[in-house]
Each structure stands twice: as structure tokens, then as C-alpha cells.
């Protein structure tokens, strides 16, 4: 995802640069001077017009007169716990007192706060810790050097003789010591070093320890943490929007007579995505919207049902899709057609649309006055949200101010090329004008009906086994809708978001003959990444297939995997598998059956052994999950465990119950009564074990999610149940 966003950001910056010669230059000339936009970097282009400036200790560190350290996080916190790890990177090298370290969210500025994997400011692809690993340690080390130099100057000693521990700067020789508070005024005047040296990992006292805990647990346990829906301002208005019932439909006409009679409704007007109701409070907006009637032009709307779409995808995979189907190879090795003997395995797999269903439905607060816009919300990709807002208010992207708040989950939903709900809010705030704050609130139903689902996916796999029972040839067809084509920038040559996980699989590396191809038919349903993206389906297909192949070959699935990992040189896969097997112990709990799965995503490899039983209602129920993760250096072990625990629940919820269906183009599951999700009584107990490593950190927010599904499916196989070829496992009662 990070890589794809980089492409997007580069092209977006290019668009800004081109735009500068036309429209934006008029405004831009005032703010930054017209010449800056020519031949400038992406960060320059996207931050043009920004008033955000770094402090004396750089953009990431603020130190109060009392010595308290504030780490400025360039990444949003919406559950991943990254603020703890990011702060630890700084505090480790700064040798700060961890108990006096706070974290605040950075403002929007693509130059100061770029995700180094994207080139623009944004969070995604489990990249927060990996891309900050060196940058934030350097920031901490630089600030530390400023304190050391300030103390050396004051005490007239050599800087090399000075030590720092827990915010106390000391000189053993003279017995002198001073706190950050006592030195901060002098330290602020020291020139920051260009390239401060970093600690040897052996010297870490914070990174990798259980001391790295969340900084927001208290605020999130007493109701004081501020999310978008909580923004309060004296003159704040609340808006709701009546949307079209089908994707691609447009407003034809509306009648607002009854809506305007609702007490508290201020205004009703058309915006590009429907009819907006602006009111004094949420309930009035809701009642006002209920009283609206509208008609829609549906000639361009998507009217197909998900069943029909899936049938089409299956036909395409089976070669019955017609001449217009374009296949793109993503792995080609040897010659599959040359392998004509050996046992043949064939399977097809169907995956439904999935909603992110974050606890906090999408929402945004915007204030627009003339060409200026100030936004407060859970912005996952501020640079893109700035760009999309700038187009509406005719300003430079960097001039759009964004205050990023806590978000009640995202799982990919808030990283949206179109900034859909943000743009909607900005249109309303622009119409209201005068800088009046407008809070756009989506109901659960709005959120579920808005699309941006994990796409519908179909896989068709044909494998021939060699005389030893291992794959000799592997033919693989993936049919899905392109996520990247949903971007305004067009489709890349291979949309890796559709095949990552099959692409790069050690099983394909270990197979001499591979013919893997992808087809991406157009569908008018907006789709998006969903926690672990391509791996949400590729991990299932590869891991469930490999278990079936092992059984066909008469081999133990764990030994079968080990042999293939050896062949592919997949050392980290071997390490996590071995660790999970060791920690799981010899037998499952009474009444439970085990299944295993291993998958690499976002730079980390995860193995899971799930213990499964069949609960009343014929539903799989998971008791214990042993998970082993290789994520390079483990910066925040407790948060890695939390992400494994949560990621497993998120993945389990999807494979057991997750499904969004369309009937004649209309979303059928609109709230938690029809869209079942995992609850407390269905949640497993997760044990997390981390493979020790000094490699740079990999991601941890997503890699735990895609592994549980195939682990459960493989446990069902071990019970003698049939393979799981269509998800979810538990179909909603019709």
C-alpha cells in the first residue's frame, strides 16, 4: 500500500505543479512565490502554502520549560498503538524520562511530516514504525546532542564525558548533573548536529521492552479522548447528507419542504453527492434528513447484484469472459503446459465484498472562509485530503490546515484517493461559508452504504503434483476489481494490491512451473484497501490450498510447508512456523482441532496455530490461537501483541461472518443487526511470540489479520470437513 500511495502522491504532486501554471498560481504567488512550483520536490509541491514550521528541536520534538518531552507524531493513531512506538524511538535516543513523554499529532505538512515510504504525509501499509525507524531515532539523538553540548558549555567539560539517563544530564568526573528543565533554554540555542550517531541496539533500554506502553489509555478510558464526532465549538453546525441508493446515481430532484419545518434545521441544499441538511444538532439533522424526499437519475448507476458479479468473475476465470477480458501475468516460471501428468488438484475460491465497519462511522469537521479551509478529523492521508480540499476552495494544498484527531478505527477506510467524506464536508462548509464549523456526521447506515469495500474476488487454482507430492505446476487466475483503478491516476501495469501475497509466495517460488494471471473487470462499486489488502484473500487461497495439497500428497501440513520453505529459502517463514509449533505444545485443548497458516505481508511474517471446535449452530469457534511473528526489531512488544490479538479478531470476524451483498446494486447489510461481527463470546485467546531479530522493523498492524482465516479453514479440514471455497463460513440467515 505504501508503494502504491507513493505513486499516487508523485502523480498528485505533478498535477499540483502543472496546476500551478494555470489556476493555483494566482493564489500560490501570494503565499509562496510563483517560482517555487516549478521543478520542486513532491514535498514542496504538496506543502506549498503551509504555515507549519518546525520547532528548535526539529519537527518531531518539543521540550517544555519543565523538561517534559512531547513527541510530534506524523502518523495518525486509530488503534494501531503506533504513538507508543514512535515516541519510544525518540525517547530511546534522547534518553528522556519515558514517564514524562507525551505524544501529539502533527499538523498537515507533506514536507516536514512525509511518510518516507510514500513521499507524502500519510499512514498505511503498516509503515509507521518501519519508515520512522531511523528518522525518529536521529531526531532523538540530535536533541540529546544539543543537551549534551549545552551542559558541556556550562560545565566547561568535554561533551564525550557527559552521560544522559532518564532526562538527567550528568558529568561523572565533576559530579555535576542537570535536568532537561534546567538545560532546555541553553540547549535550544545549540546548533543541531547534521548526522548524530545512533545507539548500538545492545544499548537500548526502552526499545523492545515492556515499558513501551500506550500513552493514550487513560484518555481512552475516561471519555476525554477527542474524536471527530466529539468536536465542540460554540457556533458548530451538524450536517447529514441524503445519498443516492445506488453507486453512480445522481440527484434528479428533491423536496425539502418538510425537512425545513423540523426544529433546528438551518438549511437544505444540493451538493455533488446528494442533498445536505444543516442543523443545530445531530438529532435535528437526522430528523430533517428523514423528512427529505428525492429522485435520482440512475442511467449510469451500478444496478447489478453481487451474485451476478460473482458469476461474471467465475466465468472470466473459466475462460468464458469474452474477448474484452484482459489477462495480466503476475508470476511466470517454466512452462505449465509441459506438465501433463501427476495428480491434479483444482479449486476455486469466492470472496465477498467486505465493509471496514469502523466503530466511528466516517465524519469530518470543516470550516471554509473564502479560499481558506481548516479541517479537524481523523485524516489518514493528510496530503491527499489537502489536495482534494484545495481543489474545492481553489487554494494551494499546503495552505489547507488539518488538525488530525483520534479516529475510531480505519482499517484502510480513511485512506481514500477521493477523500470522499472529507470532500462532502468541505462542499457543505463552503456553501455555509464564513468559516462556520460544520460537522458532517454519517450514520452507521450511511457508512455501510457508501462502499469503498474490499473488492469481490475470485481465485481459480490448478496444481499438478510431482512424484514426491510437491507442486510441479501451478496455474492461478485471480479475478477482482482494481483498487488502484479507483484512483484518479489510472491503473498501474500490475495492480499489486490484487495479487500481493500470491505474488511473492514461497510456494510459487518453490514450484518450477507457474502461470499466474490477473483480470480486473470494471464494476461501478467503489472499492478500497481493507486491513492487509491483497493478503485478505491471497493468504487464504495459498494457505488453504497448501493444506489441501499436503493432504492429497499424504503429508503432514507442517512438514509439507517446511519442505517448501527450505526449497524457497524462506528462512523467516521457517522461523515463525517452528516457534509457533514449539509454543503450541503437542496437543490441542480437549474438544478442539488445530489448523496452521503462515503468511508474509508488510515486511513481517506471521504463523498462527488455531484451535477450533464446532459450536452450536454448526459455527466454527476458535479457542486458542498461538501466533508467532517475525517483524524485525520488536520496538513495542506489548503493542505487537495487541495488534496480533486485534488483527486476529478482525480477520476472524470477516471469514466467519463478513459479507456485504448487493441486490440490484443496493447494499443489503446496513447496520450491525444485518452485518454480523465478532463479539466477546466468540473471541479467541491469543498468545503472541516474537522471533528475536535485529533487522529493521517490519509492519505489525496488518500482518496478523490474513492468517487466521486459512488457519481456521485448515482446522476444519483436519476435522474431516470439506474445504472452505466460499466465504464467509457462516452465511447470514436469509
Amino acid at each position, binding site marked *: 500500500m505504501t508503494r502504491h500511495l507513493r505513486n499516487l502522491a508523485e502523480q498528485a504532486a505533478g498535477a499540483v505543479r502543472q496546476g500551478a501554471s494555470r489556476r493555483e498560481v494566482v493564489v500560490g504567488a501570494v503565499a509562496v512565490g510563483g517560482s517555487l512550483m516549478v521543478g520542486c520536490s513532491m514535498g514542496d509541491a504538496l506543502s506549498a502554502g503551509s504555515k507549519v514550521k518546525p520547532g528548535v528541536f526539529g519537527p518531531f520534538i518539543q521540550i517544555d520549560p519543565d523538561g517534559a518531552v512531547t513527541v510530534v507524531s506524523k502518523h495518525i493513531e486509530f*488503534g494501531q*498503538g503506533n504513538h507508543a512506538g514512535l515516541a519510544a524511538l525518540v525517547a530511546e535516543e534522547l534518553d528522556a524520562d519515558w514517564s514524562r513523554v507525551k505524544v501529539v499529532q502533527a499538523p498537515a505538512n507533506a514536507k516536514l511530516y512525509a511518510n518516507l515510504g510514500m513521499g507524502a504525509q500519510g499512514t498505511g501499509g503498516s509503515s509507521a514504525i518501519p519508515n520512522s525507524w531511523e528518522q525518529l531515532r536521529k531526531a532523538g539523538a540530535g536533541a540529546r546532542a544539543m543537551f549534551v553540548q549545552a551542559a558541556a558549555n556550562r560545565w566547561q567539560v568535554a561533551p564525550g564525558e557527559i552521560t544522559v539517563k532518564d532526562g538527567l544530564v550528568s558529568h561523572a568526573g565533576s559530579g555535576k548533573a542537570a535536568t532537561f528543565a534546567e538545560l532546555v533554554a541553553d540547549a535550544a540555542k545549540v546548533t543541531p548536529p547534521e548526522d548524530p550517531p545512533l545507539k548500538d541496539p545492545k544499548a537500548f533500554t526502552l526499545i523492545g521492552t515492556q515499558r513501551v*506502553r*500506550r500513552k*493514550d*489509555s*487513560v*484518555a*481512552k*478510558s*475516561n*471519555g476525554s*479522548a477527542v*474524536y471527530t*464526532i*466529539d468536536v*465542540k465549538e460554540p457556533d458548530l453546525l*451538524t450536517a447529514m447528507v441524503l445519498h443516492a441508493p445506488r453507486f453512480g446515481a445522481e440527484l434528479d430532484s428533491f423536496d425539502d419542504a418538510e425537512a425545513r419545518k423540523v426544529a433546528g434545521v438551518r438549511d437544505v441544499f444540493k451538493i455533488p453527492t446528494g442533498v445536505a441538511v444543516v442543523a443545530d*444538532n*445531530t*438529532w435535528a439533522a437526522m430528523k430533517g434528513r428523514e423528512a427529505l424526499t428525492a429522485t435520482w437519475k440512475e442511467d449510469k448507476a451500478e444496478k447489478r447484484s453481487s451474485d451476478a458479479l460473482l458469476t461474471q468473475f467465475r466465468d472470466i476465470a473459466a475462460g468464458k469472459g469474452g474477448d474484452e477480458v484482459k489477462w495480466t501475468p503476475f508470476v511466470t516460471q517454466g512452462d505449465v503446459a509441459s506438465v501433463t501428468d501427476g495428480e491434479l488438484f483444482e479449486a476455486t475460491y469466492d470472496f465477498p465484498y467486505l465493509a471496514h465497519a*469502523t*466503530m*466511528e*462511522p466516517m465524519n469530518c469537521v470543516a470550516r471554509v472562509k473564502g479560499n481558506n479551509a481548516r479541517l479537524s478529523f481523523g485524516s489518514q492521508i493528510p496530503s491527499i485530503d489537502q489536495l482534494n480540499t484545495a481543489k474545492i476552495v481553489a487554494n494551494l494544498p499546503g495552505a489547507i490546515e488539518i488538525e488530525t484527531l*483520534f*479516529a*475510531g*478505527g480505519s482499517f484502510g477506510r480513511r485512506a481514500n484517493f477521493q477523500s470522499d467524506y472529507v470532500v462532502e464536508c468541505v462542499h457543505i462548509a463552503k456553501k455555509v461559508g464564513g468559516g462556520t464549523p460544520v460537522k458532517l*456526521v454519517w450514520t452507521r447506515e450511511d457508512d455501510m452504504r457508501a462502499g469503498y469495500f474490499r473488492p469481490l474476488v475470485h481465485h481459480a487454482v490448478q496444481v499438478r503434483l510431482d512424484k514426491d507430492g510437491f507442486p510441479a505446476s501451478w496455474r492461478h487466475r485471480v479475478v477482482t476489481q482494481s483498487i488502484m483503478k479507483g484512483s484518479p491516476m489510472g491503473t498501474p501495469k500490475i495492480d499489486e494490491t490484487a495479487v500481493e501475497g500470491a505474488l511473492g509466495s514461497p510456494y510459487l517460488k518453490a514450484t518450477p512451473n507457474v502461470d499466474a494471471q490477473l483480470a480486473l473487470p470494471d464494476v461501478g462499486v467503489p472499492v478500497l484497501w481493507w486491513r492487509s489488502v491483497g493478503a485478505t484473500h491471497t493468504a487464504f487461497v495459498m494457505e488453504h490450498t497448501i493444506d489441501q495439497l499436503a493432504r492429497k500428497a499424504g503429508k503432514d501440513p507442517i512438514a509439507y510447508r517446511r519442505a517448501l520453505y527450505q526449497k524457497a529459502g524462506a528462512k523467516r517463514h521457517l522461523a515463525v512456523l517452528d516457534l509457533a509449533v514449539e509454543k503450541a505444545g503437542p496437543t490441542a485443548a480437549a474438544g478442539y482441532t488445530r489448523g496452521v497458516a503462515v503468511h508474509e505481508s508488510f515486511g513481517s511474517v506471521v504463523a498462527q496455530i488455531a484451535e477450533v471446535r464446532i459450536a452450536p449452530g454448526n459455527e466454527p469457534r476458535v479457542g486458542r490461537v498461538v501466533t508467532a511473528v517475525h517483524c524485525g526489531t*520488536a520496538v513495542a*512488544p*506489548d503493542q*505487537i*501483541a*495487541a495488534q*496480533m*490479538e*486485534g*488483527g*486476529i*479478531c478482525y480477520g476472524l*470476524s470477516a471469514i466467519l461472518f463478513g459479507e456485504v451483498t448487493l441486490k440490484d446494486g443496493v447494499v443489503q447489510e446496513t*447496520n*450491525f*443487526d444485518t452485518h454480523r*461481527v*465478532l*463479539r*466477546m*463470546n466468540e*473471541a*479467541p*485467546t*491469543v*498468545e*503472541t*511470540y*516474537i522471533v*528475536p531479530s535485529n533487522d529493521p522493523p517490519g509492519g505489525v498492524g496488518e500482518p496478523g489479520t490474513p492468517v487466521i482465516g486459512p488457519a481456521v479453514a485448515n482446522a476444519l479440514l483436519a476435522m474431516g470437513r470439506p474445504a472452505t471455497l466460499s466465504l464467509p463460513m457462516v452465511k447470514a440467515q436469509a
Partner: protein
Amino acid sequence: MAISLDINGKTVSVEAAEDTPLLWVVRDSLGLTGTKYGCGVAQCGACTVHADGQPIRACSTPVGAMAGVKITTIEGLGGAHPVQQAWAKLDVPQCGYCQSGQIMSAVALLAETRTPSDEDIDAAMAGNICRCGAYQRVRAAIKEAAGIAQALPATATPEVSQ
């Protein structure tokens, strides 16, 4: 119309139609935004508050039905409640959006059942959805607050293998 409410130990008067859900009165009129909106149909538990000590879903309770009822929101727990302390100690929250509701359900459970079994916890907490999947730590924190320390899973602290 003016409605009198007993909320977090204070009597307040609010202007609202009787059919207005308590949730929006609490959040928009009284500014007590710790109580969250998640579904509007009593399915997710994010809006859980106490009515005379019993957990209710504020999104589906009309404010007109609250006359003479003692309402407690997350803010009314005071911040140092043993359940809140357990939540912070075990780093239960991830995105945190559902946690006010989780805590209110947990507090009500422990008021009724001082040492709840896993089945008691399932029954009391199954109405509170957490999309981050923090369920394991919610369970552990309830046991922590109940003083059932021996029941805490060792897995609350991960192991970096040697």
C-alpha cells in the same frame, strides 16, 4: 420542552423533544462526549450509560423516559474507578471509540457479580462490539478489576523468545 435530568449526580434542565434519544441530549446538549454513537439501533453498545445502575443503550432510549432516573455516563465514573484503572493498566483500548461503552457494561457487571466467570463476562459484554478486537484485554481487565489476578492470561505480556 424543558426536561429535567439527574445525570452524574447533578440535576440539569435541557430543551429537547421527548422522543430525542438520550445519546444526543448527553452529547450535543450536555457536551458529555465520552458516550459514543456507533449504530443508533442498540446493536453495538458504544452508547452504554447507566440508568439507576443498569446498563442501557442511550441511542435507543428516549430522553422523555428518563424522568426521575439516575443517569451515569463514563464521565460520572470519575476517572479513578477500579475498572478504569484496570483498563489503563492493561492498555485495553486500541482505537478506543467503543471503550466508554465497554467500561460502563463492565462496571455494571461487577456491581452485580463481584467475581464473574468467563460465562458471566460473555453474557454481560456480548452487546459491546469492539472492531479493533480488544476483547481479550477487556476480559483480562474485568478480572483485574475484580481481583481475580490468577485468571489473568499470561499472554497479556508477549514473549520475545530467546
